[in-house]
Each structure stands twice: as structure tokens, then as C-alpha cells.
């Protein structure tokens, strides 16, 4: 679904990532770890085409990203659910409207999908907060709302950038449970995190591959986890 082959990314004249190769298969579960500033977020941005690799190749759903027109990129993004570290909400919209945003921008009738939307909001436990504005939510609630928005379009792949970065351990477990449940539904999941406890907990429940960015390169980790 998403495939990186010797992908590299340079920024400001310097090399940030180099020789990155990864193939996200349907139903796979990956963790991407590494110290802060290693390039985890940049790696995810290459996967959902917010950045374009300066070397190598990135293929999304079988097409090289460099061959995609802007509208084709938008269509491909509808098949990739992204949970951003800072959530990226529109503060003038309610929580429910933010969660429904991918439906809205893809021209689908939100009213017709209201039942699915309500079920999803209930699934992430935000029924009583759905009419609030994003700034009124706690960190955990924001992350759950971001997760709900990421999966509203029933995507094939879910990319999550530090989804438990601003929440307590209990909420981290809850978010991880939701992501594992999605994986069991057949979604491919890639989580960028530096939280090793989260990775250990996930590995106790599912078969997950752990990748580490070290010295600008992607390595298979796991033995030390």
C-alpha cells in the first residue's frame, strides 16, 4: 500500500533521512521509534505525501508520488488516516464537525452518514463532548477525536504521530486499544512513538514490527524491546 525504496529527504542543505526502505502490507502493524529529532515525523510526512522524497522512491497505492497530480494526492489521502501529533483541528468547528471534516471535503453528505458518525464518536468516547470546540477538550480527548477523524473515511492505512505524546498512561492504553482494534479490522497501522512501554504493551497483544531511525537510516529493532 505504501512503499518506500531507498527514500531520502534533505532539508536546508543537510541530509535528514537516507536510504529508507519499508513496505506497509495490508493488515500490518508497525512501530517507528527513535530519539526526538530523528526524523519520525518527517518519515510519516513522506508516507502521506506532505513532503516529497529528495532521493529514492515513495509509492502510495502502487503509484510513485512524483507522478501524482495534486487532485490524485488528495484522493490518495482519503485512503490514509493520519493522527497528527498536534491534532490539527479547525477551532471554529465543533468536535463532531472536525471528525466529519474528511467526509465534508470529499463531498459526501454528512447528514446521510450521521449514524456512522455518531457510532464512531461513541466508539472513541466523545459523545458528550461532540458539540464542544477543540480547545475545550483535554489532551486525551483531542487525540481520540483525531483518531476518529483519521478513520471516518474507512482508510486502508492509519498513520499516527506520537498519538500518546500528551496523555497519561491510562489514556495511552485506551488509544492503543483502539488502534489494535482497527488493525484487527484489517487496517494497516504505523505508529511513530518514543514510548517504549507502549510498544511493549502492544507486542504483548499483537504481532508488531518495530523499526528504529538511527543515524538517519531505518533499522529493524525489537530484540531489545
Amino acid at each position, binding site marked *: 500500500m505504501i512503499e518506500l525504496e531507498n527514500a531520502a529527504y534533505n532539508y536546508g542543505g543537510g541530509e535528514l533521512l537516507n536510504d529508507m526502505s519499508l513496505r506497509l502490507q495490508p493488515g500490518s502493524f508497525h512501530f517507528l521509534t527513535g530519539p526526538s529529532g530523528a526524523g519520525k515525523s518527517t518519515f510519516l510526512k513522506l508516507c502521506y505525501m*506532505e513532503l516529497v522524497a529528495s532521493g529514492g522512491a515513495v509509492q502510495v497505492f502502487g503509484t510513485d508520488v512524483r507522478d501524482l497530480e495534486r*487532485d490524485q494526492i488528495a*484522493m490518495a489521502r482519503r485512503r490514509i488516516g493520519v493522527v497528527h501529533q498536534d491534532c*490539527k483541528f*479547525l477551532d*471554529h468547528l465543533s468536535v463532531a464537525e472536525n471528525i466529519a*471534516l*474528511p467526509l465534508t471535503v470529499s*463531498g459526501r453528505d454528512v447528514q446521510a452518514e450521521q449514524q456512522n458518525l455518531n457510532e464512531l464518536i461513541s466508539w472513541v468516547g466523545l459523545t458528550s463532548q461532540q458539540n464542544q470546540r477543540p480547545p475545550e477538550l483535554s489532551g486525551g480527548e483531542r487525540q481520540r477525536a483525531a483518531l476518529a477523524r483519521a478513520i471516518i473515511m474507512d482508510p486502508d492505512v492509519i498513520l499516527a504521530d506520537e498519538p500518546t505524546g500528551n496523555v497519561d498512561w491510562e489514556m495511552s492504553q485506551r488509544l492503543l486499544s483502539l488502534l489494535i482494534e482497527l488493525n484487527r479490522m484489517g487496517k494497516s497501522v504505523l505508529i511513530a512513538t518514543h514510548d517504549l512501554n507502549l510498544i511493549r504493551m502492544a507486542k504483548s497483544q499483537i504481532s508488531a514490527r518495530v523499526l528504529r531511525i538511527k543515524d538517519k537510516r531505518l533499522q529493524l529493532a525489537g530484540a531489545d524491546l
Partner: protein
Amino acid sequence: MFEVVRGDPQADRVVPPSGFTSWLTVFTSGAMAFLAVFALALSFATGRLADRWASELAQSSTVRISAPLEELDLQTRAAQEVLRTTPGVARSRILSEEEQRLLLEPWFGPDLPVEELPIPRLIEVVEDADGYDAEGLRLRLAAEAPGAFLDDHTRWRRPLINAAERLRLLGWLAIGLIGASVAAMITLAARAALAANAQVIRVTRLVGATDTYIARAFVRRFTVRAFGGGLVGAVLGMIAVALLPSASEAGGFLTGLGFVGWQWLWPLVIPLLVATVAFWATRGAALRVLKEVT
């Protein structure tokens, strides 16, 4: 364009209205539409003036007879006979002393003793729809009445008509410049709105919005505002034109500034033109800005 008119409440919610750009758009559109109504009125008025001068002056001409007093009547009769037998001349008549006095009054004042002055005799010639051959008539007059001179007003009619045509052209040029100004101002306002909504654009792009979808939300808003402002400006302009003093002989050209009959419908086209200009200006600005967003 149809989708802009139809609207999409869901999409409209995504992009929040931004305060000063909406007022800037409405005010600019209104002010420019108001000015465009006057430019249009100027253009129509000069057009009417040019047509009137052309038709009035083209259908009448003058034969002036300057001859010694003892030959004046003889040459006048000869000239009248020539005119009577000239194809294209509908009628001719000798101007009375009273009419000549009135013609000279602006320069010499009333009570001018016309009968004591050696002023030429004037014959007013009115041509029919086909007109006459001016050169042929001149030759015949020269042969029959050597003191007669045909003035068909061509010499001074042409510059007047040219001036009116130029004024009409200037009116249309003003409308064109007003349209360009609307486009420039709305482009600036649209770019400001796009910059103010950079986060909205970024987030909507990331969740799968196409450039056309994002642009449409801005385009619709600016087009509707421009149409509303343009409509108010055009109506106010029409009221202002209607309140101008009505045309009169004494007032001349300025009091004739306005619309006549079906011409009153023309200012109603201005809001549509303003909206069309706003549509393309915003769309162009939005698509250019969006190309810079990944």
C-alpha cells in the same frame, strides 16, 4: 459558476468568514459599481449627443448669398430655383430678418438693425432621406448665383462628432478600468483571506480536500459579496443619475447625462459583471496560493 450560485452549506462552514476582507470586497464592489453607472451614463449620453449632432446637422445645411444689394434678390431667386430643382433637397426657405437677428443676438445684443447692415442672406436647406450631391449643387450654384455659397456643416460637424465619439470611448474605457480595479482589489482581499486561513487550507488539504474544493469555498464567498456590493452600488448610482437635472437646451450636455428608456436596464448588468470579475479574480488567486500548499 453554477455550483457557486447553488452553494454548499457544509463547505461554507469549513472556511470561517474573515472580517475586514468581507467589508473590503463589499465596499470596493459597491463603490466601483456606483462609478460604473456614471461611466455608463456618460457613454450613453455622449452616444446620444453624437447621434443627435450627426442627424440634425447632416439633414440641414445653409446657402449663404453675399452679393451687391442690387443683385441680392436676383441671386437669391436663382439660388432658390437651383435648390428647388436639385434632387435630394426636401425644402428650402429664406431666413427672415427676425430669425437672422436672433442668430446674431448672442454677439451684438438685441435691437440690432439687421435691415441696415450688409449681412448676407441665408437660405435654410433641408434634405430628404437620400440627401443631395453637395459638390454638384455647389457647381450649379456657382453657375447660376455666383454669390451663393453652400455650407453643409461638414467642416465643423466632423470634429464635434469625433469629440462625442471619443467621450463615448472614454466612458467605456473608464468601465474597463473600473473592472480591472475591482479585479485587483478583490485579488488582494482574496489573498489576505487565504493567508488568514492558512491553517484551514493546510488541514483541509491534509484530510483530502482538492484544490478546487478549497478554492470554491473562497470563490463563492467573494463572488456573493461582490454581487451584493455591486447591486447596492448600482442601485445607488441609478438613483443618483435619476436625481440629476433633466435635459434642457440651456443646460446643454451635462443635464443630458443619464439613461433613456431601455438603457435603464444596463446598470443592472453591472452587479453581474462585478460578480463575474470577482469569481475569476478569486479563483485565480486561490489556485495560485494553493499550489504553494502541499
